[in-house]
């Protein structure tokens, strides 16, 4: 913050990233994590394991699927497949973010480390704001935001886990419901392709259908069949439009 012509230090950009904690997406995410703590507390998953998975997995949809697998007693390989399929979305997200934040001297190991902090919220935040940060400060800016957001949420989950059972039913019910509602709005807003809307609609419908007729494999089936249908439908529509 001095007047000298030197560019701002890495610490400056890191701290500026930390300030993103007071943005709307970060606050909604924290409330969703209170909801996640309520979900896991009611499912009787020990708090240490909940904090552990918050830090080490980080992406909320992946954790919800992981908890679902733990509760149904799924084999570790089946859980791996279900979680990894839900996390495929990380690859294009990270691949889109990396060219935005790296400069020529950014080592690949550093990108591999900070990629861990990519999840829907951090990604939306970074893609929106990183353009206002000079290139040499972007990795520090994203690291400041991502690492702080993750750490705060690990602590938050640990703090509220015990309080959750004390909540009146209306509050714990609303907090549980915050996660699906937040995901719906987030996916809609961050969608950059029409196929996302198709997949969202079909996935919701098939998620219900397969939960009724094939509850052990519902998420996997709805994802693969619903996603393929959405992709195929959108592609047919796209080709027809192109022909016109």
């Amino acid at each position, binding site marked *: 913050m001095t007047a000298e012509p030197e560019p701002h230090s890495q610490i400056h950009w890191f701290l500026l990233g930390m300030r993103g904690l007071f943005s709307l997406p970060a606050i*909604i995410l924290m409330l969703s994590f209170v909801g996640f703590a*309520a*979900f896991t507390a*009611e*499912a*009787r998953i020990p708090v240490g*394991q909940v904090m552990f998975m918050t830090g*080490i*997995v980080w*992406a909320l*949809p*992946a954790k*919800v*699927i*992981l908890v679902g*697998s733990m509760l149904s007693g799924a084999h*570790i390989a089946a*859980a*791996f497949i279900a979680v*990894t399929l839900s*996390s*495929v*979305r990380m*690859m*294009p997200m*990270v*691949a889109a*973010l*990396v*060219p935005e934040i790296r400069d020529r001297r950014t080592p*690949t190991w550093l990108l591999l480390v900070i*990629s861990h902090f*990519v999840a829907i919220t951090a990604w939306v935040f970074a893609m929106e704001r990183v353009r206002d940060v000079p290139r040499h400060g972007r990795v520090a800016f994203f690291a400041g935001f991502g690492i702080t957001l993750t750490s705060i949420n690990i602590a938050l989950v640990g703090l509220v886990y015990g309080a959750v059972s004390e909540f009146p*039913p*209306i509050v714990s*019910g*609303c907090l*549980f*419901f915050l996660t*699906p*509602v937040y995901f*719906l*709005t987030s996916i809609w807003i961050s969608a950059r*392709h029409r*196929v996302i809307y198709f*997949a*969202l609609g*079909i*996935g*919701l419908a*098939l*998620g*219900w259908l397969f*939960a009724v007729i094939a509850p052990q494999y519902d998420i996997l089936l*709805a*994802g693969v069949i*619903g*996603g393929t249908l*959405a*992709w195929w439908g959108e592609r047919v529509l796209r080709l027809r439009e192109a022909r016109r």
Partner: protein
Amino acid sequence: MSFDGLWPYIYIAVAGWLATDLWRWAGVLAGNRIDERSELLNWVRAVATALVAAVIAKMIFFPTGTLEASPLWLRLGAVIFGALCFFFGGRFRQILGIAAAMGFLAAGLAILGAS
């Protein structure tokens, strides 16, 4: 499964951490070499989104905990009311949509006497 001992942590590390960070690392390595318009990536995107949508549907239709006892029409009503506010919410649609869905659900639970 049992939640005692070291096994749950191994389970979380393998089925949670490894299953997720593999894709993050793959994303870094793919970097800007990935073709944003390839048909394969389109399919991958669609499957990933449908998968999360299925999780959302499960939480709405078959919730665990307090909401398990709540009527389905109340949960669907909350989502539809939230969606309406979302689509007409303009700049603040995300917070409006979420607040509307929460308000609808809370009011319904209060009226039905979940206290």
